[in-house]
């Protein structure tokens, strides 16, 4: 039985490297998460008082490692797998492939060094280095230039990765002139087009403003302008994390449930909607920013509401496909079919639990998206409560679950530590329920996010029911369960990775499951126009111009290279 690694050894290796890096950052990020939980609640503080700076070193690493490096390394791995498998074709240009994986690795390394230097605030040969600027790196707080340079290498590397996949598809198209774009390939290509458009904002911010400014080549930047450039990118990136998870939910979860995807055309519609709508909504992160007229905020809000549509459609298709699978397995009844699902198989249970949490996250997201209510929860603990359900579970848990299914194909070794793996998704689900619930409730009380010590001297929080102590307790329990869940994940993955190819009975090894059945309603039912990528990019650009031309003109009229001087994160605190 030739599985992926036998047929495409080079590509399998690329995916393994990307996954290894991804999981390295997942592990480091998880440790950081636990330190944050303990410090904020006051259960255990490794670093005392005013040098809160150390807390923000940890928080910067937690944010950047998890939502930039963990997610995107996983994405490039899984997309490489998807393109190769879907087109049944090698990437075809190993030099190019090696270039992008190297560029991303070196970039991640440089940025990590700059962040971790924050523990001592200096590095041999470089002197003072710190980058405690969190993953949003708002100017005029400035990080060491290494931090920005690393990010630039990382992002440009991902651009080249996209080019590599496009090239592979162009090659395939030449050999198959009349065929429709296969579905997983379609998902990869639309996601990358979205990425090219959205990363323009952060690329301009970093290359034209923050790098020259941190080198002293320009003396001032406009903080509102760089912030708006960041959020031009900052909401789209949410979908960049999510699209590989959606791909798994569409293509793999139904199969694991015993069935197949319901509708190929609808899946295409969903990805097209994300491509055209995910950038012109960024200003919804700036509802509370002075200097941006209300009308622009209203446009972003309207677009954001339309962006609910593809996610609602996904909920329908995925549930319908999974139900179909359950009935194939003999499931009966109105809800009885749920029992026929393979809940003991972690690849399935992880994705399904992730999907359930995503529904809850979607609900708290709708609340965030309303302009008025947003004022109550903006920058409160509610917000991390929300995104630990979305990126922290819907995405992270789906990636872990997918790994249980993919790793055997990439190594030729059956999954090991199966019992640990079977428990892992449930632990994550329970842990996250505790932590996220308490964060949401804490946010409504007014407890802020991004704070080492949310205990103040001049006032007390006034809970309507429960107490802050009870919330703190839930957060600590939740965090501990999450870390335990991570430990089980690593146990199973490492055991698999370093395990042997031959199964215990000395036979030929288990048959590795890597079949993906085609959709019930196939691409022949999808209108051809859906595959017209140029058209969708054109519409996406048009919407971006409509949503952003005036705000940028307005903000830039205060001055492009005028505003604030570089304020290093290291400051002497005078009291």
């Amino acid at each position, binding site marked *: 039985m030739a599985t992926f690694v036998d047929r495409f050894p080079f590509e399998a290796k690329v995916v393994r490297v990307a996954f290894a890096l991804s999981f390295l950052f997942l592990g480091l990020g998880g440790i950081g998460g636990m330190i944050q939980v303990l410090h904020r609640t006051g259960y255990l503080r490794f670093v005392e008082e005013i040098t809160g700076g150390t807390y923000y070193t940890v928080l910067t690493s937690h944010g950047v490692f998890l939502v930039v490096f963990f997610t995107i390394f996983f994405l490039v791995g899984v997309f490489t797998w998807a393109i190769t498998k879907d087109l049944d074709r090698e990437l075809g240009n190993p030099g190019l492939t090696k270039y992008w994986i190297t560029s991303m690795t070196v970039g991640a390394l440089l940025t990590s060094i700059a962040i971790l230097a924050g523990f001592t605030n200096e590095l041999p040969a470089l002197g003072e280095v710190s980058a405690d600027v969190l993953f949003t790196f708002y100017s005029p*707080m400035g990080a060491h230039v290494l931090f920005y340079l690393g990010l630039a290498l990382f992002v440009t590397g991902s651009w080249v990765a996209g080019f590599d996949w496009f090239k592979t598809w162009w090659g395939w198209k030449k050999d198959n002139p009349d065929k429709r774009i296969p579905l997983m390939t379609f998902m990869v290509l639309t996601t990358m087009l979205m990425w090219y458009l959205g990363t323009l904002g952060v690329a301009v911010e970093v290359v034209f403003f923050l790098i020259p400014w941190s080198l002293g080549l320009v003396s001032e930047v406009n903080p509102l302008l760089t912030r708006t450039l960041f959020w031009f990118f900052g909401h789209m990136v949410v979908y960049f994390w999510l699209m590989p998870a959606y791909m798994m939910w569409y293509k793999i979860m139904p199969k694991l449930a015993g069935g197949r995807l319901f509708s190929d055309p*609808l899946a295409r519609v969903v990805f097209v909607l994300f491509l055209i709508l995910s950038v012109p909504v960024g200003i919804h992160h700036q509802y509370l920013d002075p200097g941006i007229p209300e009308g622009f905020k209203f446009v972003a809000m309207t677009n954001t509401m339309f962006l609910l549509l593809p996610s*609602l459609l996904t909920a329908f298709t995925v549930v319908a496909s999974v139900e179909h699978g359950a009935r194939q397995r003999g499931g009966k009844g109105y809800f009885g079919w749920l029992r026929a699902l393979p809940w003991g198989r972690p690849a399935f249970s992880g994705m399904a639990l992730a999907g359930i949490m995503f529904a809850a996250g979607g609900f708290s997201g709708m609340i965030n998206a309303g302009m008025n209510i947003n004022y109550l929860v903006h*920058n409160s603990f509610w917000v991390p409560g929300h995104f630990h359900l979305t990126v922290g579970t819907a995405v992270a848990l789906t990636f872990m679950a997918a790994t249980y299914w993919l790793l055997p194909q990439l190594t030729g070794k059956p999954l090991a530590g199966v019992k640990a793996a079977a428990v892992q998704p449930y632990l994550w689900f329970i842990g996250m329920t505790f932590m996220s619930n308490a964060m949401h409730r804490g946010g409504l009380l007014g407890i802020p996010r991004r704070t080492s010590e949310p205990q103040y001297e*001049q006032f007390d*929080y006034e809970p309507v029911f429960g107490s802050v102590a009870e919330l703190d307790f839930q957060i600590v329990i939740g965090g501990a369960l999450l870390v335990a869940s991570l430990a089980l994940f690593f146990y199973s993955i490492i055991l698999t990775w370093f395990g042997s190819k031959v199964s215990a009975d000395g036979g030929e090894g288990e048959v590795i499951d890597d079949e993906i059945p085609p959709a019930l309603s196939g691409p022949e039912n999808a209108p051809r126009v859906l595959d017209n990528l140029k058209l969708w990019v054109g519409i996406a650009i048009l919407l971006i111009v409509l949503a952003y031309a005036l705000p940028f003109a307005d903000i830039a009229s205060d001055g492009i290279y005028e505003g*604030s001087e570089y304020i290093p994160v290291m400051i002497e*605190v005078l009291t």
Partner: protein
Amino acid sequence: MEIHKYEKAWLVGALVLIFFFIGTIAYVSAVVGVDMVDDSGGALDVDEVSEDERFADPRVEQVGEDEYEVYMIAQQFIFRPGTHDTVDVPENSEVTFYVTSIDVIHGFQLVGTNVNTMVIPGQVAEITVEFDEPGEHGIICNEYCGDAHADMEGLLVVHPEDEWEEMQGGDG
């Protein structure tokens, strides 16, 4: 393209929901009237904050019978006024805050309420609040602004009317 009938129903339901959301928000903003932070506070040069008549002397100022304006500077790691001295206003007053920063980005929130804005250097955040009841509100910076960010807090006191009159009398 073939669309299943349940799929169609779901699609229509989703669209109705979306228009419902947009509708309610538009209604609340336009008809009920919700004060949003926007560009009405204007922009200013960060280096010239101390020469701006509003911020040269950060303070609470009475501008109408029950109307007050608060000119406040947020900086690493205090609110002026707010941290070392309380912000004092009477009950049944309408208070407009003008907040700006002289260094990095900060937040300004009355704890547990929707009185909440970003404070961005070069911009003036304007936010109007009606205080109908006496009481105290914690002020916090809810955007990370550096090492001692967690210490950046202050207090706003809404005084009962009799107490307020006494205070005014005491001053004069």
